[in-house]
């Protein structure tokens, strides 16, 4: 399944590409895209792992961009 989020306050392109890269490497992620311009993060992943992937993504974002808020889009 696919879920999208808005990353409010995302303003560093380099961090965005690092975040995208890291989320893509999480287990169970089919594909993750972070569009820096629209600040939209789309995660496609296996249904049963989705919850834990979202949590892990939240941590990754916190690590690179502590001030960014991950909101449901």
């Amino acid at each position, binding site marked *: 399944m696919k879920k999208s989020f808005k990353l409010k306050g995302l*303003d560093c*392109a*380099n*961090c965005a*590409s690092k975040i995208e890269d890291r989320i893509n490497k999480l287990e169970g992620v089919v*594909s993750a*895209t972070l*569009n*820096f*311009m*629209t*600040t*939209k993060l*789309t995660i496609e992943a296996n249904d049963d792992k989705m919850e834990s992937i979202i949590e892990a993504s939240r941590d990754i974002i916190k*690590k*690179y961009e*502590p001030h960014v808020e991950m909101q449901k889009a």
Partner: protein
Amino acid sequence: MKALNKHLARIIAGGGLFIIGVFLSFNIEEQWLIFAVFLAAYIIVGGDVVLRAVKNIVRGEVFDENFLMSVATIGAFIISEYPEAVGVMLFYQIGELFQSYAVNKSRRSISELMDIRPDYANLKRGDEIIKVDPDELRIGDIILIKPGERVPLDARIITGNSTIDVSALTGESMPQEVLEGSELMSGCININGLITAEVTKKFSESMVNKILDLVENAAAKKAKTENFITRFAKYYTPVVVVLAAMISVIPPLLMSGETFTDWVYRGLTFLVISCPCALVISIPLTFFGGIGGASRKGILVKGSNYLEALSDVETVVFDKTGTLTKGVFKVQEIRPIGISTEELLEIAAYAENYSDHPISISLKQAYGKEIDDARIRDAQEIPGYGVSIIIDDKTVYVGNARLMERIKASYYIGEIGGTVVHISVEGQYVGYISIADEIKEDAATAIKLLKNSFIKRTVMLTGDKKGVGERVARQIGIDTVFAELLPGDKVAKLEELLASKSSKGKIAFVGDGINDAPVLARADVGIAMGGLGSDAAIEAADTVIMTDEPTKIWTAIKIAKRTMTIVKQNIYFILVVKFGVLALAAMGIATMWAGVLADVGVTLVAVLNASRALDVRNG
């Protein structure tokens, strides 16, 4: 905005202290005081950068820009280059400020571009009208669309007529007339009439949502250039940092008379230029701008990779029917012998009265009058030949040349364009009518534009007869025609063309997306025409042209070329400046000031250049 202001206040305060520090360093002797002033300025301006760097190291993230900037500036402090330390941090922060301003501005223009999402729908429930989120409506709900409002979901008009503005979807400024029974596309704007309509699709499947989804997700399909940048960025920073370390240490150890201070300074300058930010930010921004700009023109490009491919197209292959021609048959020529034009058309229309074949329909349309059933009897279809019928007690044959042979009538044998219908009355040949698919008004212009600018070859594929295909090709200026192809043959032909093209050039196939999906999929870039309202076209193609105009293919390629030009300008500009300054720094010519300008200034120029991609007004 608040964050920006706080940022600005810190820059101004730190900048003021920095100027005082510079002034003091020329006029007083007390080094500790000068140091204290610079240190205060540094903490105000760059404290947060150092703090973030420390936090990131704790988290195990080393090569990030905060860390590199901190090391470079603290290093400058250690070798007693106070003004450099503060100045570099100051410029870095000013650059960050400008950058977030520029990014915000591009984001705003992109969201303006995407501002076709309807905010609400007026749901009619009994006598009540309630404003609801379009997402909540279901198929069959009745909605009211007032003048000036956006059509919230795809719907069919129940009552009312109006003019609607489709420009947000197609880039077409000509308004369309709609009336009872017309299908409305979500995202269009109702100009003048009050319309009641029945929802035909859920919001998630409505046209406006499809378009937005497509444009927003286009970033997921990355161009080769983008992948190159990502890989480059990964290695650039570590390599530059290692070089910086080597430059600081090795020369003073190996060469006599060289001081650490001098070489460490050169190494620190390296660190200042070690962020690939300019590339990482400006290249995706350019692609996104190009895709967004194209969508404004009614051209949906499904990914950066397709935009890149479009810019390399050297051969355009067209499907004929529905792409270069309207796909609607129309009477082209009426040639009576011994009777009047009107009489001949009347006989043909009466004879074809019972048929629903496109040719029969075009004959009846050309005749345009009511058919009087009492005048005709004994209509009989002769499959593969035509029809026989009795009109006003006269035996009439209407059909192809073979039918004329069969009834042994002498008929006109010369070359005639299009599909020909011969007519005989009581065994006497009275003339023929030719019917052809109409060529689109701008087809010839499109081919001319393509050839004048960048396309080496144009090809047309058609299932029609050779004569018909060649005539159409001649009229609009197509180079090569392959006619009488079965649907499967089209893929095979395209394969042949793909095999014979140059290695860099790409082949685009243009079709209507309805029965040529395999060919669209096989081409380097599959372009579908007439996407507005056609889900098939939107699904099947890599690039969708919302209107029916072949000239839009030229526009699409032009936007793609322009986007790629900007991408290349940025890449070359950034690399030349960065490597240039690195080389100069190694030689001891470029100072840290030059380094920070190369880093910050280049990013800024690249971002501003990238935002040009959005602007497709003169496209």
